[in-house]
């Protein structure tokens, strides 16, 4: 028995205890409130405070994903490269669409799509998947959904390297003057992905269908984006310039993918490899139009982000019970 005699006696009053605070009580302290409703503002500041955790989560997620695999991160390049190869084969040689350097066209669209789709899809299952820590450790849970987007961003980085290699090999260049347009496009994709991811991750806790549903939705969504086909030449021509095209453009990924294609593929008008007159494949918009669309999406994305945080906050209270 190692009981300190003084500490266990009943009659010694607390304040007579030999206890000397050594100045730690003076250091700055953050006050945290745990209650049923936490305001969106408080959530954002919590998330901001946990940014190091975000980095760590992304790092460990990638580490775990490629643990014990010989090729490691190379796999993150191999699988999109495979998709690319298949589409390239099908549309470049079998169903000839006549777009020269089709692989670059395809890749420039796929890049942003993969970033968005990969992030949102893994975010959907992330709270359920990480139930172990969600039930035991306190931290802003939104970080988990954001980290899925972060992991996807790392893959985006590696895929960009592959794209650069392709461009070097095929000797094509991006439209250097428009290159800055990629920044708002990237920001908009990130914010949208984070917003969707946060909301879906919370819904999925209560309704596990979400995970499967999102897979189906994503497949449909992919074909609703002008990635394997050209916007101007196909969609615009078929749907006409008015309402239907406008509807099509409501798909938030469309303007982003168009921006990416405009910048990276850089040829709005092409000379088809199948012969014939030049064809307009990308919209003849000015840089300002692209910028305006991307900025609008960014604003919408930020709005959705707040909505997502609000939804998340409503559902979060029951996570520990439902998991």
């Amino acid at each position: 028995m190692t009981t300190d005699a003084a500490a266990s006696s009943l009659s010694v009053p607390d304040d007579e205890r030999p206890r000397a605070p050594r100045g730690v009580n003076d250091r700055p302290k953050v006050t945290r409130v745990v209650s049923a409703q936490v305001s969106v503002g408080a959530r954002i500041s919590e998330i901001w405070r946990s940014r190091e955790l975000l980095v760590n989560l992304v790092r460990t997620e990638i580490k775990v994903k490629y643990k014990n695999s010989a090729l490691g991160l190379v796999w993150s390049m191999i699988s999109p490269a495979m998709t690319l190869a298949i589409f390239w084969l099908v549309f470049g040689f079998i169903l000839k669409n006549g777009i020269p350097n089709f692989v670059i066209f395809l890749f420039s669209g796929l890049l942003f799509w993969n970033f968005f789709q990969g992030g949102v899809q893994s975010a959907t299952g992330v709270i359920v998947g990480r139930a172990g820590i969600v039930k035991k450790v306190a931290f802003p849970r939104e970080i988990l959904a954001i980290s899925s987007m972060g992991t996807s961003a790392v893959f985006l980085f590696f895929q960009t390297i592959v794209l650069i290699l392709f461009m070097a090999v095929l000797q094509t260049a991006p439209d250097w003057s428009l290159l800055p347009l990629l920044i708002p496009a990237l920001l908009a994709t990130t914010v949208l992905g984070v917003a969707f991811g946060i909301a879906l991750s919370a819904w999925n806790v209560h309704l596990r269908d979400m995970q499967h549903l999102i897979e189906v939705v994503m497949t449909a969504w992919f074909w609703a984006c002008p990635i394997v086909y050209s916007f101007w030449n196909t969609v615009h021509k078929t749907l006409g310039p008015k309402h239907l095209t406008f509807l099509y453009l409501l798909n938030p990924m469309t303007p982003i993918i168009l921006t990416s294609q405009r910048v990276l593929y850089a040829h709005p008008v092409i000379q088809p490899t199948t012969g014939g007159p030049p064809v307009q494949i990308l919209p003849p918009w000015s840089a300002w139009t692209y910028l305006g669309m991307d900025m609008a999406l960014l604003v919408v994305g930020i709005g959705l982000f707040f909505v997502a945080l609000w939804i998340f906050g409503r559902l979060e209270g029951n996570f520990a019970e439902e998991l």
Partner: protein
Amino acid sequence: MAEVAVSIEDVSKRFRLYHERGTSLKERLVNRKDVRYTDLWALDHVSFEVAEGETVGILGHNGSGKSTLLKCVCGVLQPTSGQVVVRGKLAGLLELGAGFQAELSGRDNIYLNGSMLGLSKAEVDEVYEDIVEFAELEQFIDNQVKFYSSGMYVRLGFAVAVNVDPDILVIDEVLAVGDERFQRKCLDRIRQFQEMGRTIIFVSHSPDQVRSVCDRAVVLNEGVLIGMGSPGEAVRTFRESLLEADEAEIAEQDANTVAAEEAGDDEVTAELPPHERPIRIGEVSVHYPGDDERPYLESRQPVQIHVGYVATEPIDGALFALEIYGPRGGLLVKTDTDILGEHFDVEAGEGEVIFSFDSWTFMDGAYTAAAGIRSRLGGMTYDWREGAAQFEVLYQGRASGLVNLPLEAMHRAKDIDQKELT
């Protein structure tokens, strides 16, 4: 009074227990109107404050809501109503090693866990060596955590939590695991924390651990705060609530026994239902000089334990047994009237058997007595009562340990001449 570190304000937590509730969309839609659930209030308007630098224990039996309360304090669960205000950095050990990722190495897990507790990489770098050293995992730190033994897991978890320098440390029944040496190390670290003026919220299965570590304790029973005060008081409240629960259970068992017998089960059972027992334990009380003035006896004072009985018929050769348990639950005394050479028969009516100790040579703590009545020959137990009486012992001196034996020290210098001779 120091500032408030943790303030629990009217916290309630409701758990909805659904009966086979579907989590798929189809089931939701099909069973939409037919939501069957029962509400369970794990916490019911609990309020108390923990001052800075204080160590508060939370006592309660299983399902009393203490873990739920801790989860609310840590922020893992959100209360249904009310709020918890936490001032300062909080590190919680809700379950040791929770939040570790099996696939990652110990090193990676330290960094991940550190950042979950709100530390920057640089801050973790600073304490990294201490963590590894405390956990005694130098050799294994680069191995994946999934290869760790449960003891290693526990050590790493505790090491991270105590080394990240929190203002408030929340510990949930974690000292029950790990070997004795590590437990001691943890307790030492907890003491060190206390001396540094940190706040600790401590949940333990062992009331005596609470008694030895905490300044104050609260008792929860079915989500309701039923007691708050000095550890001694709280432990008593806790024990009482346990006894009540036990009695309810015994009553239920008794009912079952009666039902079994009525069903034609003629086998003679040693444990008779209370109303059929020929002799039962009455009041058990503890007496010592000055017991009407002080709620505790001083070490080395004489003490008497009176075991009262109520007999409905004469008993030939009744045997009264006494057991006394120490503050840590260990058995200190086990004796009976037979061993003590006292043989007697009991007439119908009431009476008592008095066990007298000349001097209670044990030190501080709460001692619990259990009493029983058996037949001397047949081995039949008429009645047995755990926790029949409890008494506090106060030791005024400064020594520590378990036993307060007559002891003195003397000094004798060795004669120099003598030394030279030898």
